[in-house]
């Protein structure tokens, strides 16, 4: 009995829902301390879940006690545990960051309902990573999408509203496609449980199921901002307040990617060959195009946002490389984690840099290295992971990708990976270089709370040091697959 009470998977969803509600109840602008406390607990829960899974293997939690296909199952395996760990590990420092960030008067407006929105966002992600039911996943997708749109809009400026609207429309169109896919699957098989579906979908696949798979995957790819559906991302992520950008870029886009991966490994395992190759080509184009745009971006946060477009591209390179050896899957998971931590650090650092200079341009960074050296160091460290230089987790991801491509003799991807890394070095050093310039005579720098700087640094250091613990991550990922 006590065992069931303490089920970490369940509490990982209940807890953020609860603190989001209480934060709403507490009133405008309230809830920061509660959120941070709860996030500490959530991180503990995620760690406990991971430890538990490693010991006892993957497990199901039948909500309502019915079990699939009648009820909804929650499923926790290595992949979910990795995603959950990343989510809590990024959310906690970002919450600490946000508390200090929104304490400034001119950000008060944005902070009115930030905490409940963030709570629902995290609950949606945790629920998504644990759900094994396609319709339930639709609800979590909508929850996630609406929370993300709300967070984009909290800035309240014209640019943010426009970005939020565009994001909302893409998101709704995408979930519409997903929902139609679910409807078709239910029609074809009479169930929406992934575990029940997976064995049914092999063998003679009806045309309707192929279309369902196409609709769902295209919808999810749009939500993950894969080229050519990337257009909504730079304004949305580049325009939001820094802590929001960090959450969106580091975590939210990963949720839909996770779902693509789940589907490709589960019910839609029949989608291989051409479809997987096409996704890989789109990923490769995203790497190059995103990096190119980042090289050209005038505004700092736009640069970081375009970098997200590029880095997400790497995630899709794994689909043509998925094989029994699991290398590509490991590469994908590592890239998700590495990019999550590093991108959160980059946005956190960008927030500091913008506050220090009072501007959002790359140009305006001249001389900032002398003022906020810790932040710049954090930016550089996170950049190491983004560029895929050792010993960062980003490096391990790219290493595994190259290894997988070599093993299968698919040389083209290797060229893309390496060129992408060099382009990434280009835009990261573009920022660092500017920051190292001598400050112009007329520049004024604003003081920045130290806490903001430290959060950026901790996240960046985590993304690099994780590279030394890749083996543990891979072992966890292996649970239940």
């Amino acid at each position, binding site marked *: 009995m006590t065992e069931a009470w303490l089920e970490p998977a369940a509490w990982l969803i209940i807890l953020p829902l609860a603190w989001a509600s209480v934060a709403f109840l507490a009133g405008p602008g309230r809830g920061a301390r509660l959120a941070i406390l709860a996030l500490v607990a959530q991180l503990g829960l995620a760690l406990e879940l991971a430890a538990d899974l490693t010991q006892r293997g993957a497990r199901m939690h039948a909500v309502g006690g019915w079990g699939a296909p009648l009820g909804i199952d929650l499923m926790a395996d290595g992949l979910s545990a990795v995603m959950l760990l990343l989510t809590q590990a990024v959310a906690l420092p970002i919450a600490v960051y946000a508390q200090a960030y929104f304490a400034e008067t001119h950000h008060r407006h944005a902070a009115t309902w930030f905490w409940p929105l963030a709570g629902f966002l995290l609950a949606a992600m945790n629920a998504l990573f644990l759900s094994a039911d396609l319709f339930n996943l639709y609800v979590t997708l*909508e929850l996630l999408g*609406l929370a993300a749109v709300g967070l984009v809009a909290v800035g309240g400026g014209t640019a943010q*509203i426009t970005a*939020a609207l*565009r994001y909302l429309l893409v998101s*709704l169109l995408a979930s519409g496609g997903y929902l*139609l896919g679910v409807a078709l699957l239910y*029609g074809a098989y009479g169930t929406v449980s992934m575990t029940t579906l997976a064995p049914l979908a092999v063998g003679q696949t009806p045309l309707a199921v192929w279309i369902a798979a196409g609709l769902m995957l295209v919808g999810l790819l749009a939500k993950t901002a894969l080229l050519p559906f990337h257009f909504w991302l730079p304004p949305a992520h580049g*325009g939001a307040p820094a802590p929001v950008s960090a959450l969106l870029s580091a975590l939210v886009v990963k949720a839909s990617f996770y779902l693509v991966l789940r589907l490709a490994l589960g019910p839609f395992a029949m989608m291989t060959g051409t479809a997987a190759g096409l996704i890989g080509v789109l990923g490769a184009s995203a790497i190059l195009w995103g990096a190119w745009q980042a090289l050209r*971006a005038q505004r700092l946060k736009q640069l970081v946002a375009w970098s997200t477009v590029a880095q997400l591209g790497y995630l899709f390179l794994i689909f043509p490389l998925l094989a029994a050896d699991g290398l590509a899957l490991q590469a994908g998971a590592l890239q998700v984690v590495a990019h999550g931590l590093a991108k959160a650090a980059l946005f956190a650092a960008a927030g500091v840099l913008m506050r220090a200079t009072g501007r959002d341009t790359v140009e305006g960074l001249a001389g900032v290295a002398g003022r906020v050296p810790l932040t710049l160091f954090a930016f550089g460290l996170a950049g190491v992971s983004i560029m895929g230089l050792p010993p960062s987790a980003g490096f391990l991801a790219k290493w595994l990708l190259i290894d997988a491509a070599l093993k299968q003799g698919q040389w083209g991807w290797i060229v893309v990976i390496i060129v992408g890394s060099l382009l990434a070095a280009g835009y990261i050093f573009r920022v660092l270089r500017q920051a190292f310039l001598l400050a112009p005579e007329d520049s004024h720098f604003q003081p920045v709370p130290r806490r903001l700087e430290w959060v950026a640094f901790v996240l960046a250091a985590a993304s690099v040091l994780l590279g030394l613990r890749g083996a543990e991550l891979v072992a966890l990922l292996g649970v239940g697959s």
Partner: protein
Amino acid sequence: MSTGLLYALSGVGLFMLGAVGVIVLAHLMRKVLAFNVMGSGAFLVLVGLAQRTGQPDPVPQAMVLTGIVVAVAATALALGLARALHARTGGVTLTQGEDGD
């Protein structure tokens, strides 16, 4: 052809009509209308296809109830954002690439 299948097929038509509408129409209100048509289409497919044998199925019906509530939430949000945009710029469309960079 059973009643369920008939409505499912019309649902396909409505979905595509709505989806193309969301993409093609410029006015934000029209996009919202199209989104609702699209959603209704998906709901019809969900229930109609499941009930193509003629038996009512409470599971997709409950799902559609959930879906309708989600749709109204999304509609209210989209309209709210559109109104906020209108209040700030006077525009009722999303112009292309105003903040691309």
